[in-house]
């Protein structure tokens, strides 16, 4: 099928197109120079916004802990229920939607790619099984490396080559995409009933620190020539005074040269949900936002890209591999708590959370997130996320877009809707900046696509890109987003059209073509075949001693990936 999207107002930052009226031609699932007007189907986008399909670089959508969230929160399932349609599956869940609904909800917003940000290697089969039932969106999963016994053992021995060989093997075995680091050394310490504080506090037994792990894995990342930078969830999440740890962590990989085999990222570190890591003070009484200092660091340094983890002021479900942090949260709010230790690899926890706009801390967190968005000057360094569902569900992205584009709405919220801590503890009330649609396209499309190393085919509308296109019923030439923020949110919640690989999947906000598998991106690299053999035999020995599964049952077979897209690193 060929399409021409005619007369749309196009925002395509990677090709520096800023609101030009332009036709987009599509053939065989790709953007092409032109197609024959007589044969192509015409989509009239006159007076509408046209953007590349959205790319979510950090979300929790598939795998064991997401499923725990679904299972132990029936009261959340009740809040958003989708009945069976003629071709749609039924589903439910507001903060943790079921798999099919996850695919539908992303697509309805014009998002065509979303990444699962924390996959325990041992549970990667489960993650890929859920991907198989999450329709439409392209995806990848980030295996957890930051508290892995092998990584820590090789780093303790100072053997960076073996560490690289192990990482290369594990990425292949789990069909994973990046080196994800969560509370490095801290989740391992949680296995001993403790935590680490800062990046210089060593894990028990292994005696390596968060800084050692970040530096070691950043070096490995560039040795393996991976498309994405190391993906870091810093230590001390959510604790007042943690911004110093955050800035120290950002500095660790500085000086390492980016060396991706594909894509064109400049960053060597991607720091996630930085909102939760930008707090000053020593406790929740003298707590104050240090987002301006964190934003200033990002403004002055080119080796880093961040995402925000915006708090959306909803009732949601928190879930992370940061086990000790979830225990802290459970003791704070007293709500139900799930916890898991994943053998030699990582851990995780799940706790429901209410970010009430009337409560002081959530209101301040809301302000901290918006400060990061608005004080980081260059939208090519910041990505739109809520760390879904931790700060709030991904279905709130349109609302965040309205907050970013409308100072009027923010002022009204600060004065009338949120607790006064938003003004007292953060500088949000003093910031008047409003994003334009170009910047919105950056934080939700081009910036994540580029830092993920997928910008050859994703996050833009140039010739050769995958034909993932979102069309929104909002006319920037006649409508003012600052004034018409409600219409803006509605337009981005339910796109007029969404095309995925050149096929219409959403029309008038409804999913019309749900029976499609998204691509699974994964890293297919062999760093050093001989060394990897040696490492594999060591790993096998540890499996016999410590793992509850057999080595031969560990690796995820290609059969689990209905639309497998291997991406080469070192050897390719």
């Amino acid at each position, binding site marked *: 099928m060929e399409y021409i999207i005619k007369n749309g107002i196009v925002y395509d930052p990677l090709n520096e197109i800023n609101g030009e009226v332009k036709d987009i031609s599509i053939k065989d699932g790709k953007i092409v120079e032109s197609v024959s007007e007589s044969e192509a189907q015409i989509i009239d986008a006159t007076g509408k916004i046209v953007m590349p399909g959205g790319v979510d670089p950090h979300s929790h959508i598939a795998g064991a802990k997401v499923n725990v969230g679904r299972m*132990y*929160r*029936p*009261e*959340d399932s*009740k809040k958003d229920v989708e009945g069976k349609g003629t071709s749609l599956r039924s589903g439910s869940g507001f903060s943790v939607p079921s798999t099919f609904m996850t695919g539908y909800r992303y697509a309805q917003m014009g998002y065509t790619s979303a990444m699962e940000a924390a996959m325990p290697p041992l549970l990667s089969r489960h993650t890929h099984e859920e991907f198989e039932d999450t329709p439409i969106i392209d995806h990848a999963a980030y295996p957890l490396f930051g508290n892995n016994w092998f990584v820590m053992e090789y780093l303790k021995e100072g053997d960076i080559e073996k560490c690289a060989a192990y990482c290369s093997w594990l990425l292949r075995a789990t069909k994973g995409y990046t080196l994800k680091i969560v509370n490095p050394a801290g989740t391992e310490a949680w296995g001993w009933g403790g935590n680490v504080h800062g990046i210089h506090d060593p894990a028990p037994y292994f005696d390596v620190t968060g800084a050692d792990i970040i530096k070691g894995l950043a070096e490995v990342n560039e040795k393996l020539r991976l498309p994405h930078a190391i993906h870091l969830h810093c230590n001390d999440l959510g604790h007042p005074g943690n911004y110093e740890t955050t800035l120290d962590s950002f500095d660790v990989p500085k000086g390492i040269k980016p060396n991706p085999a594909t894509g064109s990222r400049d960053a060597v570190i991607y720091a996630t949900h930085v909102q939760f890591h930008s707090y000053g003070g020593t406790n929740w009484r003298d707590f104050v936002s240090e987002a301006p200092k964190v934003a200033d660091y990002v403004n002055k340094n080119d080796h880093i890209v961040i995402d925000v983890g915006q708090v959306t002021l909803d009732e949601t479900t928190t879930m992370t591999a940061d086990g000790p942090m979830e225990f802290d949260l459970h003791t704070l709010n007293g*709500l139900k708590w799930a916890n898991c230790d994943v053998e030699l690899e990582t851990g995780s926890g799940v706790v429901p959370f209410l970010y009430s706009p009337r409560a002081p801390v959530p209101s301040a967190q809301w302000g901290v997130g918006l400060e990061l968005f608005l004080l980081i000057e260059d939208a090519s360094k910041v990505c739109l996320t809520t760390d879904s569902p931790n700060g709030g569900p991904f279905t709130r992205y349109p609302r965040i877009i309205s907050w970013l584009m409308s100072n009027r709405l923010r002022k009204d919220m600060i004065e009338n809707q949120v607790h006064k801590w938003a003004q007292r503890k953060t500088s949000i009330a003093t910031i008047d900046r409003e994003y334009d649609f170009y910047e919105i396209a950056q934080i939700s499309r081009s910036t994540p696509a580029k830092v993920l190393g997928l910008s050859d085919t994703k996050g833009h509308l140039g010739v050769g890109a995958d034909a993932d296109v979102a069309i929104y019923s909002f006319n920037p030439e006649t409508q003012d987003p600052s004034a018409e923020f409600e219409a803006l949110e509605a337009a981005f919640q339910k796109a007029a059209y969404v095309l995925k690989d050149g096929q219409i999947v959403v029309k008038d906000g409804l999913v019309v073509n749900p029976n499609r598998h998204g691509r699974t991106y994964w890293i297919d690299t062999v760093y050093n075949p001989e060394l990897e053999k040696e490492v594999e035999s060591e790993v096998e020995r540890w499996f016999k001693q410590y793992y509850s599964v057999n080595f031969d049952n560990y690796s995820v077979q290609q059969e689990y990936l209905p639309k497998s897209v291997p991406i080469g690193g070192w050897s390719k």
Partner: protein
Amino acid sequence: MSEITLTPKEQPQVPLEAQNITPDSFAGKSIDEIKATEIWHGNIKTKIEEFFEVAGEPSENPSEIKIIIDGDVNKTKRIGQSMTAGEIVVKGNTNKYVGAEMIGGKITVEGDAGSWAGQDMKGGELTILGNAGDYIGSAYRGDWRGMSGGLITVHGNVGNEIAEYMLGGKMVIKGNVAIMPGIHMNGGVLIIEGNVVARTGGEMKGGIIVVKGVINEFLPGFEYLGIEKDIDVEGEIFKGAFHKFKGDLATKGSNGLVYVGVAGNNHIVPDKR
């Protein structure tokens, strides 16, 4: 008051889900429109008239409507769900979720009610003249915020985990109770006139439970505060002598009170065992 009578035809094997049988849903509808009101038969949409004869006087205002279900509807769930005003009388047994999420008005079930009656109730009055099942006046599955207002009265016996996560309002059980009444309770008043099998007020944080009958087994997490006579529970005086307990200390910051009639209950008092 306008009366609308629903006379059940043959009750189906697969239960009906009838959350639309409320004064709110009937208000402003003609009798023909009420007949055509949607209910669910399993996973199939159907109409009230498929399973009920409908007759009576319609009204614009829900508080003016009294719905009489003239017969046994033991296969009909969710009667009166979320109703805000008016009255429903069921002249027989009913299935689960009668009066769930009720906000106002009055429901009387003359026979027995199934489980989850008055789930997550916020206001109004629910009276069951027969027995009722488990989870009467409890929270939605998984939720930690249960019944917050209104009055539930059961004249017969009830099952397990009634008043689970109760936050407010009042529940009176005139008969006997199985295990775990008032589990996770955090407010409100639960009066049990009959006996309790075990685990009264497990993990309760707040609220008041009064048991007039005999408790077979009591939990160890309660502090014994001695005997109190003619107790005053939110303005209502209960005559006689009661053992007074505070707990459940298994839960942090717990401040719940359990009064247990002295007669037949010395075996649950620590120094009298």
